[in-house]
């Protein structure tokens, strides 16, 4: 009766249910829609956006009311929309009430395009103008009123018959016209803090000289040639603060109101244009470029909509713990290193080596040091002092010595394990 030749059992099959994918654990009813209707979705979206929308609307309304309640004003000196003490809105409004059409421009191109024959062009200070811009202004046919002009503008406008003076007359003294110009005579008296204007040739007439001014020098200059050019050496005459003093108002209104149309040009540093045809910046590009750029912006908008909508949300993964089990060991090593405890580190290495070699040489873990040293000396034929020094010597003095010790221990172990 033998039982020794029984057939081997069939191999154990692994826990595997995927070999045939017929076991369908989940066959629920079909899902149709997400339970929302167009109405419920609209309500949900409305609830989501209504408060942000309300806040935006409120801000827009407040901003709009604030913008509408105040006319546009500026703080540019001598600008017709500046109501401050250095502005000239009072003068501009009076001119407007008297039927003069005041056009406020800030670029040379605009000024040149508006300054036709039979109109007045006011240029307040040419400090910010380029030589090319001054030339462009001089080529216009409009009557010029120059306030505090520079050399180039004044001499160019008067055909070289006038220039700037260096007049240090008393600024508080009232000056009489002392000339035949009807505007000056009508004004009667003004005060000036300017340096004065000097006529150097025929055609130019100077009025309002100071008490001790050089000959042919005054605060007001008229040049009658192809067109009438009026120059004032002091812009404060026109400001809101002092327009009502002395004969300032009469002089300003008469000078500027000579024609139906007044172009009020306040030059600025940011303006580099010369005329409408030849401007800096966009002038060198074909006119359709900006339109194409806008169209490309539209394309970018559609592309953003195309790429912006995900095909369903991102799926999250609940990750397992990522901390490695060896982290505690590494932390311990760093503690040894930071506290420079070479003695501890060396003791650990020595104890571990001794433990392994004792096990290899058949000694119990509790074996005494001399017994272990004897066994190692017999296995490796090394001097006993050397082995004793390696395993039970003093702690290493520095990191290099510790590294040396570790390598010597490795060598000793390898000799014990592979004699």
């Amino acid at each position, binding site marked *: *009766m033998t*039982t*020794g030749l029984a057939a*081997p*059992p069939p*191999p*154990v099959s*692994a*826990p*595997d249910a*995927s070999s045939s*994918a017929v*076991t*369908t*654990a*989940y*066959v629920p009813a*079909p*899902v*149709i*829609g*997400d339970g*929302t209707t167009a109405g419920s979705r609209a309500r949900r979206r409305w609830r989501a956006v209504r408060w942000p929308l309300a806040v935006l609307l409120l801000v827009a309304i407040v901003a709009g009311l604030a913008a509408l309640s105040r006319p546009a004003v500026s703080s540019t000196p001598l600008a017709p929309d500046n109501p401050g003490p250095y502005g000239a809105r009072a003068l501009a409004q009076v001119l407007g009430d008297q039927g003069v059409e005041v056009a406020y421009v800030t670029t040379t191109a605009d000024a040149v395009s508006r300054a036709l024959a039979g109109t007045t062009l006011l240029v307040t200070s040419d400090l910010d103008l380029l030589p090319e811009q001054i030339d462009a202004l001089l080529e216009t046919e409009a009557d010029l009123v120059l306030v505090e002009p520079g050399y180039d503008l004044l001499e160019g406008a008067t055909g070289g018959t006038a220039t700037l003076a260096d007049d240090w007359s008393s600024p508080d003294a009232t000056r009489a016209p002392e000339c035949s110009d009807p505007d000056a005579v009508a004004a009667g008296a003004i005060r000036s803090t300017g340096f004065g204007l000097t006529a150097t040739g025929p055609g130019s007439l100077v009025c309002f000289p100071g008490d001790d001014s050089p000959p042919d020098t005054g605060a007001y200059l008229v040049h009658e040639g192809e067109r009438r050019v009026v120059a004032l050496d002091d812009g404060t005459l026109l400001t809101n603060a002092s327009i009502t003093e002395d004969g300032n108002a009469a002089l300003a209104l008469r000078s500027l109101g000579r024609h139906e149309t007044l172009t009020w040009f306040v030059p600025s540093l940011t303006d580099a244009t010369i005329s409408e045809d030849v401007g800096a910046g966009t002038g060198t590009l074909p006119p*359709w470029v900006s*339109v*194409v750029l806008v*169209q490309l912006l*539209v*394309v970018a908008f*559609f*592309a953003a*909509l*195309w790429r912006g*909508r995900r095909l*369903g949300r991102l*799926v999250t*993964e609940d990750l*397992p*713990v*990522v*901390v*490695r*089990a*060896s*982290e*505690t*060991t590494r932390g*311990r*090593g760093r*503690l*040894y290193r930071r506290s420079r405890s070479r003695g501890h*580190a060396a003791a*650990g290495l020595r104890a*571990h080596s001794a433990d392994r070699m004792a096990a290899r040489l058949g000694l119990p*873990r509790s074996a005494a040091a001399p017994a272990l040293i004897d066994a190692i000396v017999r296995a490796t034929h090394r001097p006993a002092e050397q082995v004793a020094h390696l395993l039970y010597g003093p702690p290493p003095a520095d*990191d*290099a010595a510790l*590294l040396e010790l*570790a*390598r010597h221990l490795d060598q000793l172990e390898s000799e014990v394990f592979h004699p």
Partner: protein
Amino acid sequence: MALTWRAVALAALGVVAVLVVPSYGTVLVWALVVALLCALDVTLAASPRRVAVERRVPGSVRLTGRATSQLVVTNLTGRRLRAVVRDAWAPSAGPQVNRHPVDLPPGESARLTTVLVPTRRGDRLADKVTIRAAGPLGLAARQVSLDVPGRLRVLPEFASRRHLPSRLARLREMDGRAAVQVRGEGTEFDSLREYVIGDDVRSIDWRASARRADMVVRTWRPERDRRVLIVLDTSRTSAARIGDEPRLDASIEAALLLSALAGRAGDRVELFAYDRGVRARVAGAAGPRLMPALADALAPIEPALLETDWPGLVGSVHQRLSQRALVVLLTTLDPAAVETGLLPVVGQLTSKHQVVVASVADPEVAALRAARDSSADVYDAAAAARVELERTAVRTVLSQKGVEVVEGLPEELAPRLADTYLALKAAGRL
């Protein structure tokens, strides 16, 4: 509502129109035309909310195996459905290609198959199914994301099953049933058979031989129907990563190999996972039902960031076992955890049962101990040497209390535990 690339291309065509008529009005008109066409396309598109979606998922798949998630999409609208369907799964479920183009006439269905190659054990859940139905012009689309539940249970890989045939062969040798004529070891009387040359003369049964003409020897076999109780520690120490997976996964591999072996050896295998309570339990399953039950119970176990309640664990063991058994604790030999947890209570177990403590060793600690490149490495090596010394001390203390200690790298633990089991069985210590 979603746009397609065609809408962008149509908007880009506007550049030509703008070049022909360069004015801002052209830009505005073209943008309005594109927007109107998109709106028209959306209104003409089939409603994705009138599409029936049904999911079929296999109940379970082994880790690294392939499974297929099937979606049956039925067009219930009166319009043609041109859509892209995305079958979203968590990344660890390993969906390969999960975006499917669909073109369905009204009333027809399509079956969309997403291949899943899971990369992590456990229950992997399906996310939403997104349908983006484009209009007849293909400029814009309507989109909806639907909750279509699906769950794929990813069973443990059981890579250690490759060690099973060799261990089964050794089991058969011990059993005396192998083809080679080796008399069985063990203490349990099996049968009488005729003497053949080579048998140990000490096993001759003289009384039986006297009754018949032939010499008869007694054969023995290992004990059968012993109880093996495997306890998986799922506390915080099982969460730490060793190599590329948590310590728990290596423990599960070892538990599966041991169960397969003990099940074949005729022992009754029980298992429970414990941290501060029983997380999973397999009891009473035997024969072909054992391994599927184990795999199914172990698949969803995740480490809990808790301290193990060792007295409670011992209480549960006593509750389960009335007679002597082999108790295998799959836990850690971390000195601090063992000293405060296992050591005070292990005596209660060893007094009644044969206890084996199995723990996964960390290959990184061994690598740290061997590093000698710089002085910083030597400090790490010293720390690793200390750790190993402490583990050796823990092993010694446990051995003195009568516990068999098994330690191995993640891929070595399972065969070592199986070998320990075979050695205990051969020695009749079960």
